[in-house]
């Protein structure tokens, strides 16, 4: 059995996406693939009294694993466990609980994908930080580095190396702006390789992957669909707030490229009508003010979903900001887009060699 530990330096770097993409690839190649998450720091409560790890649940569904989500998770950091463990002074040995869970999860599998901490520090006070886990379970680690700039790329790669040493099989730089891709590959990669830090992939930034679906937006905002609920899968990459005069609005909306949504008051018919004349993909109407029937009709006609929310425009923007860019690759289209990008920019052969897969 082979195992790969996927960790990152900071949250929202793309660990789950990499697990999914690798998992689906291995499966296609005929491997029996398993998944395990040793530590879940933010369990989610789908039903009262039932805590689950959301990522694990999502991976389980996407990779069609037979195990229950509980079986794929080692330790769930519930509030009571957090109290018990204090700051690392408790006697309880959580690693002793993780090990048998891992053993159970990997039974009968050919490749295990182990999703690690969101940072190199995560779990230190619980004894479940990436370094302890890779040592205890004897795992090879792939560190996902979210690109900020070239200096930070170097810092993060070296930090991963210093923490994980021999367990670090390689790094993957994620979300590199296309304009910096060339220099990253030309300057950073050779330099890191020289320091024995393998860069297995440099994945360019793609706006579509940041996108949030209209359905997700409706969930987050607790919105009502006024038109085209069937378009819940439409992805939104950018937002425009329509709070100005309509003359200024048109150029503002036009200058925003890509898939955009307009956030404006439900009573701003002028703004809504203007937006519907541009390539705006969704209207989010605030203040629980219903628009003119023409607006809904037009939305229906040209296939633009219209959401009505109770919040005012500012609250709506704040709520969107909290979730934007942090959603999972919930749509098949988004996952496929990432897989395509991953396939093009990641050196699988080298990873297979390092993992001693044939």
């Amino acid at each position: 059995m082979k195992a790969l530990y996927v960790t990152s330096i900071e949250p929202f770097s793309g660990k789950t996406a990499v697990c999914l993409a690798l998992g689906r690839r291995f499966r296609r190649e005929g491997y029996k693939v398993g998944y395990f998450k040793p530590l879940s720091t933010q369990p989610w409560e789908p039903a009262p009294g039932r805590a689950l790890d959301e990522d694990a649940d999502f991976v389980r569904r996407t990779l069609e694993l037979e195990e229950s989500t509980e079986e794929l998770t080692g330790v769930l950091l519930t509030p009571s466990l957090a109290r018990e463990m204090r700051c690392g002074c408790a006697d309880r040995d959580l690693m002793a609980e993780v090990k048998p869970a891992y053993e159970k999860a990997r039974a009968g599998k050919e490749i295990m994908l182990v999703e690690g901490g969101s940072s190199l520090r995560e779990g230190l006070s619980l004894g479940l930080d990436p370094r302890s886990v890779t040592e205890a379970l004897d795992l090879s680690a792939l560190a996902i580095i979210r690109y900020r700039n070239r200096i930070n790329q170097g810092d993060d790669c070296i930090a991963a190396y210093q923490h994980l040493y021999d367990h670090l099989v390689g790094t993957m730089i994620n979300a590199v702006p296309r304009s910096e891709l060339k220099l990253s590959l030309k300057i950073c990669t050779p330099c890191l390789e020289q320091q024995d830090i393998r860069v297995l992939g440099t994945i360019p930034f793609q706006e579509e992957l940041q996108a949030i679906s209209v359905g997700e937006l409706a969930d987050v905002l607790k919105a009502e669909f006024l038109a085209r609920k069937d378009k819940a899968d439409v992805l939104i990459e950018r937002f425009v707030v329509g709070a100005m005069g309509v003359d200024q609005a048109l150029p503002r909306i036009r200058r925003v490229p890509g898939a955009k949504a307009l956030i404006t008051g439900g009573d701003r018919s002028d703004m809504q009508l203007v937006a519907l004349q541009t390539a705006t993909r969704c209207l989010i109407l605030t203040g629980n003010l219903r628009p003119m029937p023409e607006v809904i009709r037009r939305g229906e006609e040209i296939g633009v979903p219209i959401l009505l929310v109770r919040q005012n425009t500012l609250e709506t923007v704040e709520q969107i900001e909290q979730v934007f860019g942090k959603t999972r690759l919930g749509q098949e289209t988004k996952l496929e887009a990432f897989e395509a990008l991953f396939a093009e920019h990641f050196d699988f052969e080298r990873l297979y060699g390092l993992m001693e897969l044939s």
Partner: protein
Amino acid sequence: MLENFFQPDSVAVIGASRDPEKLGFAVLNNLKEGGYEGRLYPINPKAEEILGLKAYESVLDIEDPVGLAIIVVPSKIVPHVLRECGEKGISAVVIITAGFREAGREGLERERELLDIAKEYDLRVIGPNCLGVIDTDTPLNATFAAGMPPSGPIAFMSQSGALGTAVLDIAMAGRIGFSKFVSLGNKADVSETDLLKAWGEDPSSRVILIYVEGLPDGQEFMRVARDVTRNKPVVAIKSGVTKSGSRAVSSHTGSLAGSEEAYVAAFKQAGVTRAGSMEQVFDYALGFAYQPLLRGNRVGIVTNAGGPGILATDAVERAGLEIPRLSGETVQALKEYLPGAASAANPVDVLGDALADRYEHAIKLVLDDSNVDSVIVIVTPQAMTEIESTAHVVGQLSQESDKPVLACFMGESRIDAGIRILREYDVPNYPFPERVAPALAAMESYRREKDRPVFEPEPCEVCQPPVRELFSQVREQGRVSIGDAEAREVLEAYGFPVPESYLAETPEEAVEMAERIGYPVVLKIASPDILHKTDVGGVKLNVNSPGDVRDAFDLIVYRASRYVPDARVWGCLVQEMVREGREILVGMNRDPQFGPLVAFGLGGIYVEALRDVAFRIAPFSQEEAREMIGEIRSYPLLAGVRGESPADHEAMVDALMRVSQLVTDFPEIVELDINPLTVFDEGQGAVAIDMRLVLESESS
């Protein structure tokens, strides 16, 4: 086209009623009382006879063909009866019933249904939610308004029915006469443009008045209006021009009010006379409707009072018209006839004791003067003034002359008898000089528009393929903005002179390029994401040495990445330093109703601080381009102040024409700015220094 709305052989009133409280009664009664001579069919399944006319259960029961149907049944059954109209082969239907688009979702759906039925049976619909239709020639009064206006040469259309009732009430007081009157209501089918087209050919309408809230088919309206205004004046008032007004239009009608600049330009280009108030609509209409067309801008004034004469003189000049000197013979003749204290110069003061005969002599002499194109007659009610006889004199002279005579009989109680007499002679009266002057000015500007040569776009020599290719590349990359570095390809393809410039990715390349161009050079940040380069310190002028080039490159790239962290930075543009000239701006914003709205103004602070910009909708002619240039307030700066040589006008016109063509050739350009276009002195051309444009993002 649309004849059956105005001259039908027969009319069916669907929903006619015996109950005088109901609209269905009022409409039928108006048709009868209004003197309609064709066959009238009340449709009401529950009545045998209404107002002495045999009632029918449905239009399908009528044996003879029906020209026009008026629908006043409740909104829910309108689709059903409209369908019956279709089956009956009726081609014109007025739907007075309300409860459609204006009444919410369900109403909107019902209105769409009406439109589908109309298409299916190829019939035209006015309304719904309207007051109805009047033609005073036929005569036909198919409205529920209170009574029939007097007939006259004015055709009036209004989106607002309520405004229509007020206007009809004014007409009924005897102030104006209408040829046609239509309240358009929700404009489900027939729009301002359709009526304009029809009335353009209507011999009994000398002037067309329009109350406009929004024109969704703005470009088509312009095309039609351009033709119509060659033959007769069109006066329009546009509401919803302020920020709040525009929002009111959207929430009132569910359509866009449109931008004020676009309307100003569109009306001007189409020869439509724009009135600033309802008062002006009628002030202008009276002049157009009842007086001959002007032949020039020189106004003679005859008054019996000094003060009002001076007020009128001011008002005339302020309105852009001229107070000419009268010819020697006229002055001589006036002097011989008038008392010594009178003024024989324009404005001619016949003094307070003038009786009708003195007025008659003076007006006649002034009208006959070849220096005068129109005459304003001012009468104040002084002790000896013969108000009524003077009115007769003015009226008779006006009818004998081919020059417009406008009256300004000032006052109310005593003067009223005179005003009534003037009306009999079709001489419009304005209560104050400040109102008569703008009316004359409107007539004068219409004259100039009418005489303007027929518009034909004049193509420039351009090269489209590289532009097309660039646009598709940009779109493939998911971008909509095009900055300087790429935009110059567009400029070059469209024949704009541009400064020599190259893209440098590294400081070393920048030095190499600077050497190639020759010092001094300009360095500019090259990034598709930074459109306002100076705002981030992304431009360095007058760079004079290799060391400075290297420093400037580093500084600019550093600033860009610091102030716009997400921007894609390609490097720097190294550009030839263009010598000084006058900086102007040529821009374009695509208006949702009228299309490409091209702006011209002085560059830099003038545009932003003074909003000193002239607009036209592309495509436009060279003449219109020339007008734009002359229209800005700061034009004297271009013409040359204090011995300065003038800027190269031909180069500016050329730039405007090329922009006009570019934005017409590529509808996907929604925004464009050439700022600055540096214009050199007369004969030395112009160079487009910087340009950015925005493409319409593609919908999925």
